[in-house]
């Protein structure tokens, strides 16, 4: 299993290379190769694991040198962050990095002797995460090469530091691999901090004042989570003399009181990473970063780290106060942020809110911690990773061509930039329309929350899905509207590598939708069996047949209808404007006898449900819930 150290270390090597090589052409070529190798590596790992019979594998019991290397790296990380905090005069943030790092260092050097454990753990869930990180991460790197070229072409005021950008991208990929493969909590903590810092540096890439403010907000929120994680680990190590994640879960399931508090703290950390309320603002602020980093970190992979941890803890949380707290926060976030998403017209903001909202649903699924909900959560995660990555990249490419990412400006995009609009359409459809997996996952989450008697979740999901379809559908409607209002010709300047990445994403999306039942049977069911110790069929057979019918139908009918609508004979009429249509369906004659161009807009209700109005109260509410619940957890355990 030499592939594992390779997967973790290779991106770090790539990062160094990216930093050192300054000629763009050479670096781009190497970035392509690196991305391909990473993608290949993750497939190779999966191949090896399947050859080995898909059994959980535990590796690397003796890792003294690696431990020391990680400790050194952690201290370097701390120094870098502290330096930046002082440079930008955010002194207090540095406490959040110094304290946890010191705690970890103390634990490593002077802490109690812990039991011998494996440091790497491979099972269905970590392989799945590896695939998401490897495939989507690599595709995003490929896309980034083209995108950053265009980005610096348009934003001449921003210093071209592409070497730095790619360094961070690769650094992040390495951290993600390390994170999902680690079993040792100490290792997990290091990789956790590393992803936080990568995200912080990428948000501040442009060095504009807003970028710096937002990057520090992201930093302190994520570091706060990291601190909670460190405290949890410390507590667990001192009480149980063990730093294994699986041991922690097992102890907690067995009802060990000492395991409840660390689980609650780690779950709290996961909330910050997954940008749940009250920590949602960092992810929205993160949208100032260049699009590839938004796609990679803030929707497709990094925020999934929080979800991944929660899935790991799910069996331990099922039915406990911690689980209820997580489920409630998740469900609440799902509803409130989807309401706030309605009020946004900036494409990237909508994506950010919908990311938080969907993460909320996943968090809720993990919090309920039943096999059905985890099943739903895993599918939500897969579909969300692909479709969000697709959407982010597509909005980025559209912005490069259109010079705007406002949804109102995307009126008739299907006729202006047909390729990009089609990709966007597929991405959005994947988020909520039948027969894409998102919907069936929702079905399952719904059923499970009824089964577990969680009334409040039933309401969150019922109302949340209504608001979710609202903002997606109105975006889609904008794309298909016919007359385009822009006078000047828009040129599709999307680079070839961007298109390659987008196409692969779209194909993956449709494939997943078609192979969905199969995937459930051969992969997700065993995953649940592994997690809960018993296998259960979540998807009833009858539903499976129905899905096949719906899939065939939804793809076949429009195809036939399309063919029919192309061949029919008809008379074209002007659209109805009380008889004063000027003849092109985009302007009417006003009372002064002059042509007036139409401006059609969607509903946003920003005065009623805008971010300004709803964010603060809901944050307050979430904080109150968190505090009360944490007190109950700790009080109950102590």
């Amino acid at each position, binding site marked *: 299993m030499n592939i594992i150290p390779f997967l973790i270390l290779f991106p770090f090597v790539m990062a160094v290379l990216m930093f050192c090589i300054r000629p763009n052409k050479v670096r781009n070529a190497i970035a392509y190769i690196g991305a391909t190798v990473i993608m290949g590596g993750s497939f190779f790992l999966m191949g090896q694991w399947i050859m080995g019979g898909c059994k959980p594998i535990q590796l690397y019991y003796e890792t003294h040198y690696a431990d020391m290397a990680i400790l050194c790296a952690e201290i370097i990380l701390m120094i870098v962050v502290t330096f930046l905090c002082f440079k930008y005069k955010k002194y207090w943030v540095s406490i959040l990095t110094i304290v946890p790092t010191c705690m970890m260092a103390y634990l490593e050097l002077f802490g109690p002797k812990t039991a011998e454990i494996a440091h790497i753990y491979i099972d269905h869930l970590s392989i799945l995460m590896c695939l998401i990180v490897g495939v989507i991460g690599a595709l995003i790197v490929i896309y980034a090469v083209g995108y950053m070229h265009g980005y610096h072409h348009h934003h001449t005021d921003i210093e071209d530091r592409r070497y730095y950008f790619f360094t961070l991208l690769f650094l992040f990929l390495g951290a993600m691999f390390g994170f999902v493969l680690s079993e040792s909590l100490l290792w997990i903590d290091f990789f956790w901090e590393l992803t936080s810092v990568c995200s912080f540096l990428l948000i501040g890439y442009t060095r504009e004042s807003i970028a710096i403010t937002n990057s520090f907000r992201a930093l302190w929120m994520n570091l706060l989570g990291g601190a909670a994680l460190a405290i949890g680990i410390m507590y667990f190590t001192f009480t149980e003399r063990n730093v294994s994640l699986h041991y922690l879960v097992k102890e907690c399931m067995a009802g060990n009181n000492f395991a409840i508090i660390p689980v609650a703290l780690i779950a709290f950390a996961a909330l910050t990473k997954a940008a749940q309320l009250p920590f949602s603002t960092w992810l929205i602020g993160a949208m100032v970063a260049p699009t590839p980093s938004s796609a990679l970190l803030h929707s497709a992979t990094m925020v999934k780290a929080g979800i991944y941890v929660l899935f790991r803890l799910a069996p331990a949380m099922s039915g406990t106060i911690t689980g209820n707290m997580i489920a409630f926060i998740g469900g609440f976030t799902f509803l409130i942020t989807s309401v706030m998403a309605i009020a946004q017209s900036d494409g990237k903001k909508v994506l950010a809110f919908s990311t938080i909202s969907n993460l909320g649903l996943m968090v809720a699924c993990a919090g309920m911690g039943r096999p059905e909900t985890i099943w739903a959560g895993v599918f939500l995660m897969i579909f969300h990773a692909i479709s969000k990555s697709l959407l982010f990249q597509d909005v980025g490419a559209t912005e490069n061509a259109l010079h705007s990412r406002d949804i109102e400006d995307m*009126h*008739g995009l299907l006729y202006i930039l047909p390729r990009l609009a089609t990709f966007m359409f597929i991405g959005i459809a994947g988020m909520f*329309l*039948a027969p894409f997996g998102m*919907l069936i996952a929702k*079905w399952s989450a*719904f*059923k499970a929350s*009824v089964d577990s*008697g969680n*009334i409040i979740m*039933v*309401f969150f*999901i*019922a*109302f949340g*899905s*209504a*608001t979710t*379809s*609202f903002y997606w*559908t*109105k975006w*889609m*409607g*904008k794309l*298909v*509207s*016919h*007359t385009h209002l822009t006078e000047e010709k828009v040129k599709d300047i999307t680079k070839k590598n961007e298109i390659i990445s987008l196409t692969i994403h779209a194909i993956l999306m449709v494939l997943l939708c078609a192979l969905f039942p199969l995937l459930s049977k051969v992969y997700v069911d065993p995953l649940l069996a592994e997690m809960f110790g018993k296998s259960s069929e979540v998807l009833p057979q*009858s*539903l499976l047949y*129905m899905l096949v*019918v*719906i899939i065939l*139908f*939804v793809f076949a*009918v*429009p195809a*036939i*209808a*399309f063919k*029919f*609508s*192309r061949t*029919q004979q*008809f*008379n*074209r*009429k*002007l*659209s*109805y*404007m009380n008889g004063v249509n000027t003849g092109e*369906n*985009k302007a009417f004659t006003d009372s002064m006898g002059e042509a007036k161009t*139409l401006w*059609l807009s*969607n*509903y946003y209700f920003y005065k009623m449900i805008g971010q300004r109005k709803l964010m603060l109260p809901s944050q307050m509410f979430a904080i109150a819930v968190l505090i009360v619940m944490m007190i109950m957890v700790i009080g109950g355990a102590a």
Partner: protein
Amino acid sequence: MNMILRIVGYIVLAPIIGGLLEGIDRKISAKMQRRVGPPILQPFYDVKKLFNKQVILVSRSQTFALISYLALMILTGAMFYAGMDILMCFFVMSTAATALYFAAMVTSSPYATMGANRELIQMMAYEPAVLLSCVGFYLAEGTFNVNEIAGSGKLDIIFLPGFFVAFVFILTIKMRKSPFDIATSHHMHQELVKGLTTEMGARNLAIFQVTEWYENVFLMGVVGLFFINGSYISVIYAIVAILLVYFLEILIDNTSARMKWENMLKITWIVTLFTAGVNLLVLMLVRVA
């Protein structure tokens, strides 16, 4: 075999029943206004006429979207009457509604766009009630499967009165009746002309009309599901209930004026929360105890 029969039955009979219901609707409305009213077969005359007119289009893609709407709606109803998963039926229905939204949006005409936007708000307003009704069935019967719900021997309405009220309430929206006909006004000379259907002329309007019939028959089936418990007498209950509900909708239609969308959204959500919510709470408590 039985299943195929029911699917074919739905596909063939639904437009006939739906058309007849609309004819009766118009007749009763006329009587309420002390008029003679059109013949009961009037909706069929209208549709036949529309099919025979010159094919006109504002945008080519509209037909495409409308045919998808029709097909998806038929799929919804067929799934329901074949006795499949009720939650999936409603998911497919919302996909169908999205197709209708596209049919109005593609034209980019001011009135159609306005109607389409309002249609979206309507969708947002009725979706929670619809989903919660499914939850209600699941709580009462322990399954989402329509066949099992219908053949269980339990009279669901006894357990689900709150859900029933919520569902009937949103039926007014789905059936495009006053006071919630805010996406397509069915009286002329209003600020949104014909709303959603403004740019649908001739054959396209006919497709839309037929789809509405399919939809109504599906929705009436859901109303009936509250009363059916597998025995023959319950079928009679169901039919009586359906007719009463339909009459109630006509009555509401003729006695109220159109509302603003804000009020519609608020009232619908509040009613849903209260009736379905209280019912859900009680059911869950009973279940736990």
